[in-house]
C-alpha cells in the first residue's frame, strides 16, 4: 500500500507537468499532441546539461527552454492557414522523439547528478515508509503550480484572455486580442512544462537517460486532461490516480501477484475512454471543454 502511494507520487510527477501544460494550451483553443516528443526531448536535454554542468536544476531549466522551443515551433506551424494542429502534433511527436534519440546517443552511458528530494518520512522508524515518503522537489513545485494555474485561469486578467481566446475566438478578436499571440504563448508555456516533466524522468525517477524512458506518458497526459475536464486541480488528482494505476502493477508483482500485470497498464486508457464515452454526446460538446478546440467539435 505504501509502495503504491510512494510509486504513485513518483510516477505521477511527469503526468502532472505535461497535463498542466496541455491544459493551458488547450484552454487557448489549441491541441498539442506532440508533447510526448517534447517530454523525451526534455528528458534528454535535461540529462545532458546536468551531466555537462553538474547542476541538475540547470538541466531542468534547459529542458523547459527546449520544450518552449518545441511549443513555439508547433504554434508557428499551426498558425499558418489550413494547417491541422493534431497532425502537426503527431509530426512533432515523431520529430522530438527522433531528435532526442539522435542527439542523446552519447549520454546513455554516463551518469548525471540527480535532483534532490525532501525526506518527509523522518518521523517514522520504518525504512519502507521513509523511502516511500522521499518526495521529490518537482512534485511539490507541481502542486504549487497546479494551484497557481488554477488561480491564474480563474481569477486574473491573463487567465480570462486565454479562456476567451479558447472559448470564443470571434469575441477575443473583437476585443482586440491577438489569437496568434495568445495561443503561441500558451503553447510555449505548455511546452516548457512538458520539458520540465521530461527532465524529471531522466533526473529523478527512473533517473537515467535511455531510449525506452518514456512509455507514452506524454500521450497519456492528453487523455488525462480530458479526464480532468481542463481543470488544473483535477489534473493533480487524476495524475495521482494514473500514477497509482501505473504503480499498482509493479507493487502487486512485488508481493507475488504477477498475473494481469499488463492489463493494469491499460487501466488508465480504458478509464479515459470510458469517461469520454460517458461524457460525450452527439448533441453538445464535451463538458468543460474550450469550445474552439478541434477535439471537442
Amino acid at each position, binding site marked *: 500500500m505504501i509502495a503504491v502511494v510512494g510509486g504513485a507520487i513518483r510516477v505521477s510527477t511527469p503526468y502532472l507537468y505535461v497535463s498542466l501544460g496541455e491544459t493551458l494550451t488547450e484552454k487557448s483553443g489549441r491541441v498539442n*499532441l506532440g508533447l510526448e*516528443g517534447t517530454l523525451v526531448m526534455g528528458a534528454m536535454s535535461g540529462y545532458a546539461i546536468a551531466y555537462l554542468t553538474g547542476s541538475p536544476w540547470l538541466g531542468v531549466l534547459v529542458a523547459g527552454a527546449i520544450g518552449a522551443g518545441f511549443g513555439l*515551433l508547433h504554434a508557428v*506551424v499551426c498558425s*499558418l*492557414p*489550413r*494547417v*491541422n494542429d*493534431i*497532425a*502537426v502534433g*503527431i*509530426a*512533432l*511527436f*515523431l*520529430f*522530438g*522523439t*527522433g*531528435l*532526442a*534519440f*539522435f542527439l542523446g*546517443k552519447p549520454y546513455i552511458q554516463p551518469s548525471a547528478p540527480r535532483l534532490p528530494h525532501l525526506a518527509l518520512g523522518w518521523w517514522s522508524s520504518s525504512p519502507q515508509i521513509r523511502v516511500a515518503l522521499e518526495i521529490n522537489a518537482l512534485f511539490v513545485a507541481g502542486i504549487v503550480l497546479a494551484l497557481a494555474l488554477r488561480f491564474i485561469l480563474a481569477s486574473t486578467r491573463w487567465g480570462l484572455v486565454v479562456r476567451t481566446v479558447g472559448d470564443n475566438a470571434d469575441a477575443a478578436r473583437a476585443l482586440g486580442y491577438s489569437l496568434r499571440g495568445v495561443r503561441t504563448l500558451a503553447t510555449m508555456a505548455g511546452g516548457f512544462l512538458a520539458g520540465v516533466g521530461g527532465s524529471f524522468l531522466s533526473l529523478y525517477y527512473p533517473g537515467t537517460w535511455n*531510449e525506452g524512458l518514456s512509455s*507514452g506518458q506524454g*500521450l*497519456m497526459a*492528453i*487523455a488525462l486532461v*480530458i479526464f480532468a475536464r481542463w481543470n488544473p486541480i483535477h489534473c493533480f488528482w487524476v495524475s495521482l490516480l494514473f500514477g497509482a494505476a501505473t504503480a499498482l502493477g509493479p507493487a502487486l508483482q512485488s508481493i507475488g501477484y504477477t*498475473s*494481469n*500485470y*499488463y*492489463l493494469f*497498464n*491499460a487501466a488508465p*486508457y*480504458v478509464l*479515459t*475512454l470510458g469517461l*469520454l*464515452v460517458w461524457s*460525450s*454526446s*452527439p*448533441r453538445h460538446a464535451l463538458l468543460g471543454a474550450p469550445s474552439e478546440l478541434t*477535439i*471537442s467539435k
Partner: protein
Amino acid sequence: MRGAAWAETAAISAAALLAALGVFGGFVALRGLNPLDVYAALVAGGFGSWFSLEETLTQAAPIMLTALCTALPARAGLLVIGGEGALVVGGVATVLAGVNLGGLPPPLAVALMCLAGALGGGLWVGVAGALRHWRGVNETIATLLLNYIAIAVMNHLVAGPIRDFGQVLKPASWAIGERLMIGTIPATGIHWGLVFGVVACVVTWVLMRHTIVGFAVDVVGGNVRAAQMVGLPIGAIVLATTVLGGAAAGLAGAIEVVAVHGFASSSLVVGYGYAGILVAFLARQNPLAVIAVAVLLGGITASGGLLQRRFGLPDAATLVLEGLLFIALLAANTLYGRFRRSSGD
C-alpha cells in the same frame, strides 16, 4: 485543369522534401559530416542496389496498409490514428486463427488467417467509428487510446494465456508453424505482403474515385450538412470507412505474422502505424499516391542501417528526417492555391 492541380501538388511536395532534407543536412553537418555524402547514402541505402530495393519494398508493404487506415476515414472527414493498434490486434487475431485452423490445407488456412487479421483490425477501429457517430466521441483521441489498449492486451496475452514458453529471449505467442508461413515473391527476396499492399491501395483508389460509394464518402467528408440534406447514410459511411481502414491495418498485422515473424510479440509494435499516418498525409489521402510515398518512406527507413554503418549516425537519424518531412509538408499545405491566378479551375 487536373494537370495543373497535379503540377501544384508535385511542386509543393518537392519543395517540402527539399526543405526537410536541407534541415536534416544541417543536423548531420553539426556532427561534422558532409550532408552531400549522407544524401548519397540515403539514396544508395534505399534504392541503390537490388538488395536495398528489396529491403525498401519489404518495409513499404505494411506502411501502405497502415496508411490506408488513416487515408480512408480521412475522405469522410475523420482523423484516425489507430493504425498501430489495429495492426497489433490483426496480428494477434491471425495467430489465434492460425493455431485453430492448422489442420486445413495451407492456402485456405492462410486466407482465413488474413481474413481474421483484417476482421480484428476492422472491428477494433470500427469501435472508434461507432463511438464517433453515436456518442460524438472524438475519433482521434479514441483511436489513440485504443492503440495503447491493444498493445497492453497483446502484452498480456503473450505474457501468459497464449505464451510460447519455448521462446526465451522475449515473450512471444505460440508460433503458427512453418507450414502456414507464406514465402517470397518468386525470384525476389520480397514477401507477398507487397502485393497485398499494392492491391489494397489500387482497390481503395478505384472504390473512392470511380464508384458512387466513393463519391458519397467524399460528400460526407466535404460537408456533413450537405450529405444530410441529400439523405446520405452518414452513420453507415463513417462506420464503413473506419472498419475498412482498420481492416487494412489489421491485414498489415496479419502479413507481419504470416510472412515475417510467425508469431505475435512486441516486434509488431515498431511504429508502422505512426509511419502510416505520415504517409497518408504526405499522399494527401490519395490511395495511389500512398504506394509511391510508402516506397519513399520505406527507402528512408531501409537506409538507416547504411547511415549507421558508414557514418556512425544513430538509427534515430531516419526518424528525425521523417519528422522534419512531416512538419515541412504540413506547413506546405498553406501554400496550396497561392500560385494559381484564377480560383475557378
